[in-house]
């Protein structure tokens, strides 16, 4: 029962908290045969109940705050949150906009940030590797 078992089988769930859709399309590109993330045992799932990793895009609009928190709570432990894109990390181009409550780490705890507007698929895959490293460290501590 260590977190090490998790890192070769990461099932990801994608949450859009108000992004411009650029990052979402990059996530879809990451799932294509060209990048083949199934090599690492990753899989896109349709419900937070099956997920290990939440991929959050977008700067969290006022409307999405509660929903994001709820999706986070719906995900079974142990879980990891990855923020994809500048918006989610800092606010990006929407910084200090009147209808933002984000960035994401004000709402839910974030483990890995992937910068870029939008980040390339390679960057997203690198983020996943960071998740592995993080999980391994946590597993050692336990």
């Amino acid at each position, binding site marked *: *029962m260590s977190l090490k*078992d*998790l890192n*070769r*089988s990461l099932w990801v769930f994608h949450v859009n908290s108000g992004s411009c859709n650029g990052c979402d399309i990059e996530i879809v590109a990451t799932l294509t*045969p060209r990048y*083949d993330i*199934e*090599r*690492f*045992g990753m899989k*896109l*799932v*349709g*419900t937070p*109940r*099956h997920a*290990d990793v939440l991929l959050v895009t977008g700067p969290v609009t006022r409307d999405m705050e509660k929903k994001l928190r709820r999706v986070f709570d*719906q995900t*079974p*432990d*142990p879980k990891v949150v990855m923020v994809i894109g500048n918006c989610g990390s800092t606010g990006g181009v929407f910084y200090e906009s009147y209808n933002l409550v984000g960035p994401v780490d004000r709402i839910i705890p974030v483990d890995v940030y992937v910068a870029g507007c939008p980040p390339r698929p390679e960057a997203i895959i690198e983020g996943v590797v960071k998740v592995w490293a993080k999980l391994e460290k946590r597993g050692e501590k336990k």
Partner: protein
Amino acid sequence: MIEALQAIALIPVVAIVGIFISLLFKGIDRILAARMQARIGPPLSQPFIDVKKLFMKENIVPKNSVKWLFEIMPIVSLTASLVVLLYVPLFGFKPLLDGYGDLILVIYLFAIPSLAMVLGGFASSSRYATIGAQREMVTMLSYEFPLAISIIAIAWVISKTGTCIPAFSLGTIFTIPVWGLVGPIGFLGLVLLSLVMLFVMPGEIGTVPFDAPEAETEIGGGVLTEYSGRNLALFYISSSVKTIAFAALIVALIIPWNISNILLLGGTGAIVADALFFLAKLFIVVFVGSTFVRVAIARFRITQIVKIYWGYASLAALFGLLLIAIDLSWMV
């Protein structure tokens, strides 16, 4: 008495071997699917890693669900899938519980994992799961008819070989290859029925293109939406066991030959050769019936599933039955 005790002692062995082989086949299936899409694909052990991970995850039971039903259904599903394995011929041997149940029982047992999923979906009180459960029921109603026709036709052919042999018993069916019992017209009919059975397979085990009940891109996982952790793992194992159980049934019905008498082997050599040959046959059926179709065709809508199974597949099966009827009436 001693035989019965032996059978009971073998039950856990069959269960463990069955789970192991089914997960292995799932790994092969995923690698082959990846190769067909010009990808590298996951390692062979991926399904084992997935299951291990799911077992260590938190198991959430939704607040509004019917808790006992929600919790018990994954176990029911897995048990039913494993029980099927005891009634189908595996590795070139007679079914473990031969004489205690026949084809009709097997068909009913195959319905139980799907029913368990339906009940679990309804019990979870999620709207997505409810839609998925309804779709699952509709799919089940659609594929049952062509499947029943095919199986009854084969049993019918076998019943003509002599009086008072148990034609529906899988122990009999797998010792008498049906292909030798019919003339050219009946042969055509059997080919048609075999194709229908292979075509029913993805519906029965719920893979693409007939996975509308679990469509994760439109209804978020369907029947399994609310399942997580241990319960999800049980459903995962159950569906892969069901895959090889159904493939083993098809093997017993349409490619029942053993290789040992062709190679003129005896003793242990024969057992090993037959077991390996069985795995090869099983692999061919899983590949044709599941992997290939899964990669080649995109998901059907639920209306299309009904039309395909009730319309085309049933018509094809009835036509095959007709051909066999003509053939059998000529032979008399």
